[in-house]
Structures are given as C-alpha cells and as structure tokens.
C-alpha cells in the first residue's frame, strides 16, 4: 500500500470520531461516525475504507463496547461507498443525497438484527427512545427496533454523503489527483 494511503487511515478514523464535536454544537440527531470511512473510500477505494471502518469501530468500542458488533455496518458502508465512487455519485448533491438515503436503508436493515438479538435495541439512548416510540405506536418488537435504527440511520447517511461530496469538491484538483479514486468519484475523470 502506498505511504500516502497508509497515512490517510489514522486521519480518516480520527475524522469520524472528532466530528461528534461539530454535531454536538448544532444539536442535530446525527452520528457522522462513517464520514471517515466514506471519505477514505471515495479517495482511495474500498480496501482503505474497510480498514478505516474496522479501526473506527475498534476505537469506538473503547468508548462504548456495544459498538463492536456493528463493525459489519462499517464494512458494508465502505463497499457501498466504493460502488458509489466508481459510479461517480459524488459529482453533486443531487446524486450524493439519494445515494446516502439508499445507504441509510441498507444500514438500518443490517443493524436491526444485530441491535435486536444482541442488545435488545438498547445500543444508544436515541435508538432506545425511538424503539420505545415504535412500541407505543403498536409496532411488533422487531419492527419497533427497525423503526429506531431507520430513524437514526436514514438522515445520518444522507448528510454524511452530502458532507463528503462537499469536501471532495472543495479539495484542490492537484491534491485530489494524488488519491487514486477521488477524480472519478466526483465525475472529473
């Protein structure tokens, strides 16, 4: 692996974990904890993205151990972002936001069984509360758990895709060209 891509991995992991400060400042119900994974994939391909995703989960696990089984989601996010980058879906918000919404559906479908069978849908306070809301609305337990995951993932992934698109377009072309996939992801190559 080239040294530049090696240097990108810890930086991308730190991005995913540091963005919580920005999210707290604007008080929106978002995680943005896959930003580094998606950005690294759009720049350097899915193998770097998978490495970033696995490391992000490992470091997050030291803060909240229930995050570790969700490493599967990070891997799926990296593979999906790789396909999106190859298709040039980061060329504008009109293509990136629907792609992010699609990822939100896939992520919530995948995280629901993990959250339900391992943790009884109590992985975070927000998910537990939205699951309780789903139960109050008359949904069955698994359906309520999906409702909780869907509410948290759907918007989060769309905002993350939009954010990564903004970064890729704000990056000077000379810098972007140093990464193997960046220009293709924004439809410039």
């Amino acid at each position, binding site marked *: 692996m080239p040294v530049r891509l090696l240097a990108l991995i810890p*930086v991308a992991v730190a991005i995913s*974990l540091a*963005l919580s400060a920005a999210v707290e400042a604007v008080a929106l119900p978002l995680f943005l904890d896959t930003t580094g994974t998606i950005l690294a994939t759009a720049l350097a391909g899915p193998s770097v993205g998978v490495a970033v995703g696995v490391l992000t989960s490992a470091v997050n696990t030291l803060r909240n151990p229930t995050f570790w089984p969700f490493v599967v989601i990070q891997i799926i996010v990296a593979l999906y972002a790789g396909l999106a980058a190859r298709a040039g879906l980061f060329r504008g918000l009109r293509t990136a936001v629907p792609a992010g919404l699609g990822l939100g559906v896939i992520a919530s479908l995948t995280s629901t069984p993990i959250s339900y069978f391992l943790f009884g849908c*109590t992985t975070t306070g927000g998910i537990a509360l939205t699951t309780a809301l789903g139960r109050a609305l008359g949904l069955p337990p698994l359906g309520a758990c999906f409702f909780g995951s869907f509410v948290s993932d759907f918007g989060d992934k769309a905002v993350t895709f939009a*954010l990564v698109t903004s*970064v890729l377009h704000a990056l000077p072309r000379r810098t972007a060209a140093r990464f193997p996939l960046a220009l293709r992801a924004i439809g410039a190559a």
Partner: protein
Amino acid sequence: MRTRHPFTLLTLAAALPTLAWLLPAPAGALGTAAVAFGLAAAAGVRRVLVPAVVTAAPFWLFLFVLHDLPTTLAIGLRITTMVAGFVWLAAVLAPDRLVEAMVARGWSVTVAYVFAATLSAVPLFRARARRIVEAQRCRGLSPRGSVAKRLRALRALALPLLLSALHEVDERALALETRGLRSGARRTPLAPPPDPALERAARWALLLVCIAALVGRLV
C-alpha cells in the same frame, strides 16, 4: 494486570463477552459479569469499577423500559460483562506495549504504525474540532434555528476540519517516507513485553473454553 502480555489482556477481554453470550442465561452471564467486575475492581475501584457501573447503568434502564424481567436480566448481564470487560481493558492495556508486542510477533511495521497513529490522532483531531467550533462561534456562526440553518452551520464546522485533515495526510506521508516506512518492512522491537509459557497456555485454554461453550450451545 498491567504487566501481563497485551495479547493475554485482549484474549481475556474477548473471551468474557463471548462466554456471556454462549453460556446459558442468566447464570452464565452472571458468572462472567462477576469475573469482569472482579477484574475492574482489582484495577481500581474509582478509576475502573465506578466508570464500568456508570457506563452499564443506562442499558439496564432502557432494557427495563423495552423488555420483560427475564429478557432484561439475560441481555443486561451480557452487556454488563461486555462493558466492564472493555472498560477494564482500556484501563490496563498500554497502546505502546501492544505495538511492541505486535512488532515482536512479526506483524508488519505498517500495521503497528496504523494502530499507534490512530490512537494518538483521535485526541488531536477532537481538540482541533473543538477549536474550530469555538473559532466559528467567535466569527458569528449561529448553530441554532431551523434544521436547514443547522445543517449549513454543520457544513461550516465540519469542512475546515476535513480539509485540514486531508492536507495533513501529505505531511504525514512525507514524514513516513523520510523515515523509510514501507509496506511489509520488519522492525526490531526496542522493549518487547515478556510472554511467559503460562500466559500462552492460559490464552489457548480460554480459546478452548470458548469453542467448548459454542459446541455446547449448538448441540
């Protein structure tokens, strides 16, 4: 426990939640939770045990709200084992010793670099993110109002962090190249942690216990 080999600490922290999920509930998970709390108490009551209890408490609250008592007990004890085990691991596992152990075991220096650089980069970038939030507030950015306004504020807060981080990648790559780091390179560890035969045997024993529990669960 700090003097134990890092691989032993990792094996123990992985085995406890594995057994908590594999052994029959709630007795099995009660046993693993007791072991995890014992380890946490031995590492320091105020520094490790109390944070473990505080981290596990909200899960019990959510479980009581969402489930009946037997399910709450079964899942709650499993999550408690996991939380206490990882809080204990974070307290006793020194990242530099882990990197030394990995290098001594023949892992590529690039893998060791990625682990060490990630652990040191996270607090650095968190501090930078907080500085950017404060700087943008000083410039009059208001993170309140409608969702659209908050999303615009989020972009103004996140973009400087992401762009500065990507520019830093170049600096880091240059620094690594000048130090001769390349994929597959092997280094000699300066102070590899000792790995006594007893600890190696204990790791294999833990692995066998987990496999036996898995077989017992499936049969």
